[in-house]
């Protein structure tokens, strides 16, 4: 340890599932002891087994366990941990939780609470990023207060526009509006949805970009103002704003554009005093212009594709940075080798997307060159109905995108999960889709794909059409 004298002996992981396992794996490699917390239905979960110590912190519902801040802090104090890694979801972007950790002298592995709070408010984040020089989509910089105001703004930026929840995410509180007469109703539904989902009905307006790509830049920043980016991820394959499949690199980013977007993200990090790993999400329009959407101030599900093409361990870097270590890399150290794809395997009906919890009766993972599987389930495991349906991530890596696709296809073909339904068949179909294979994708891909599959998908259609 060079700086800060903050080397961790023990970390509590305030999460479950594959990301909890993922964090424990890296802690083991670093010689750091781990404490798992779990709900009472998760007693048999692998993160509990893998951790050096574990405590049951509450019943199944997240609000009483994985979101139960007093129980988590109590456990951290009882086990005398140095730091808490929040993973993704649950408390990962709770500035309140980060603050409590700080107050308790437990290092929160992530950026400062104030930065989390800033980037957690979409309106504030847009304002800050605009000030930091990032291009943003034309739109209201404040929540709209009336239909009249909204109409005026919409006319300024031009239809179609999109109404978004200020506190939002996950597609809730979002409506595309193609003409003035649709605006009133859209504002009302979006605001109602936002209020229900986030307890905050504020909405704002933005220009709607047709068939954009979702491109995000991974950054690593230390506590001394040093920052680099690790290139981009292509995450356009989404359903109802939930990513299904991610790639690195994107087929449409030239080295110049990558360098430009990367530099813009790095510059923004420095402006807001960001530290830890983070992700800038951009929309890329059909002319390859990019617009800042939002920043995720945490590790992401899809971090693995970046790890495959860069050989970096992003979780290790998060921990090192939180320990007070300087970054130790310069932008010139970045090397992107080959192409990586990640498929999220969810315990869902691959046609209706209905959750499919239950007991896994047979389980077999793909192996061989260029295949990585991050999972927390095993033969005999009971997938509980209480949490996120993602049970595994399959990542393939090869010299070219074509080979990475061929590798993904065979990996999914030999992957066996019986007893529950999973999205494996869906991903297999995507691998065979001519547009996907050609790299001709946008955030509208899945809607078209599912329509051509003859699927009814009313909710998704609703969310992005009107």
């Amino acid at each position, binding site marked *: 340890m060079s700086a800060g004298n903050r080397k961790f002996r023990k970390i509590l992981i305030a999460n479950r599932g594959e990301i909890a396992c993922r964090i424990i794996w890296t802690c083991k490699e670093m010689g750091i002891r781990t404490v798992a917390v779990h709900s*009472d239905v998760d007693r048999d979960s692998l993160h509990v087994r893998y951790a050096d110590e*574990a405590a*049951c912190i509450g*019943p199944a519902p997240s609000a009483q366990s994985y979101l139960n801040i007093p129980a988590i802090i109590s456990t951290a*104090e009882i086990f005398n941990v140095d730091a808490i890694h929040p993973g993704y979801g649950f408390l990962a972007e709770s500035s309140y939780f980060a603050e409590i950790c700080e107050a308790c002298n437990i290092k929160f592995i992530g950026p400062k609470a104030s930065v989390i709070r800033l980037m957690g408010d979409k309106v504030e984040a847009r304002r800050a990023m605009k000030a930091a020089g990032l291009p943003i989509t034309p739109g209201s910089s404040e929540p709209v207060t009336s239909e009249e105001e909204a109409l005026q703004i919409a006319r300024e930026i031009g239809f179609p526009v999109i109404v978004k929840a200020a506190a939002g995410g996950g597609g809730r509180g979002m409506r595309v509006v193609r003409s003035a007469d649709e605006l009133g109703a859209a504002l009302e539904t979006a605001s109602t949805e936002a209020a229900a989902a986030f307890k905050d009905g504020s909405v704002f307006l933005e220009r709607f970009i047709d068939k954009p790509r979702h491109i995000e830049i991974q950054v690593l920043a230390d506590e001394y103002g040093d920052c680099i980016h690790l290139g981009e991820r292509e995450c356009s394959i989404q359903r109802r704003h939930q990513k299904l499949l991610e790639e690195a690199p994107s087929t449409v980013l030239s080295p110049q554009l990558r360098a430009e977007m990367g530099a813009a993200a790095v510059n923004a990090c420095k402006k807001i005093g960001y530290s830890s790993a983070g992700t800038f999400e951009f929309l890329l329009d059909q002319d390859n212009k990019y617009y800042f959407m939002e920043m995720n101030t945490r590790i992401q599900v899809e971090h693995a594709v970046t790890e495959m093409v860069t050989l970096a361990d992003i979780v290790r870097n998060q921990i090192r940075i939180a320990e007070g270590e300087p970054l130790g890399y310069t932008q010139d150290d970045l090397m992107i080798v080959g192409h990586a794809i990640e498929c999220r395997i969810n315990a869902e009906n691959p046609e209706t997307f209905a959750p499919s919890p239950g007991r896994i009766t047979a389980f077999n993972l793909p192996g061989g060159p260029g295949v990585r599987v991050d999972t927390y389930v095993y033969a005999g495991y009971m997938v509980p109905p209480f949490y996120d349906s993602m049970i595994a991530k399959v990542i393939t890596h090869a010299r070219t995108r074509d080979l990475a696709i061929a590798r993904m296809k065979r990996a999914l073909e030999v992957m066996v999960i019986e007893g529950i339904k999973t999205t494996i068949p869906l991903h297999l179909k995507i691998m065979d889709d001519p547009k996907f294979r050609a790299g001709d994708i946008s955030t509208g891909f899945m809607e078209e794909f599912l329509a051509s599959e003859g699927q009814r998908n009313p909710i998704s259609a609703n969310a992005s059409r009107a």
Partner: protein
Amino acid sequence: MKDSESQSVAKVERKTRETVAPESQGVRERNPSRQPKPEPSVNMDELRELIALLRENGLAEFELEREGFRVRLRRGVEYDPMETRAAPAPSTPTEAPKTAASATGSPAPSHPGALAQTAASEDQGLHIIESPIVGTFYRSRSPNAEPFVKTGSKVEHDSVVCIIEAMKLMNEITAETHGEVVKIYVENGQPVEYGQPLFGIKK
């Protein structure tokens, strides 16, 4: 928080095994009416009928899904072996990193991976008072004070049986049953987790 609050006493809601808490007990609990969500579309009579069907026919499990509506029933009968016994998480092959004593001097129990020491099978039939929260277990109000209860103590519903400290809050735990304390599962000063057996009460 480590430095902020002075000790105060709070009362924490607690559920015991007698009064089954539908959601909180998790998968291994045995209440048949656990899962159905009383949504407007559910016809209670129909549900009642379904359950009766289940019982009459010795079904263990029943699941029904219909356009956003889903019912799943599972009969309890006895501790269902398929739930936890049939397929526990595989035990890790290396015991070394697990049994090594923590260098931190933390009060971590020597068998980590599970804080709780479970009530032995001979204690079946006892009413178990479980810890409602994660925290540190104290048998008395202060280090020099007498324990709230000892083996043989008689308790009433509102008898304080111990204190569990969490985040500097001293939470008084009441018996919420009446009977005689015949087992004390946890040592004074030991950390406890959610659902961990604290006392065995003979009614």
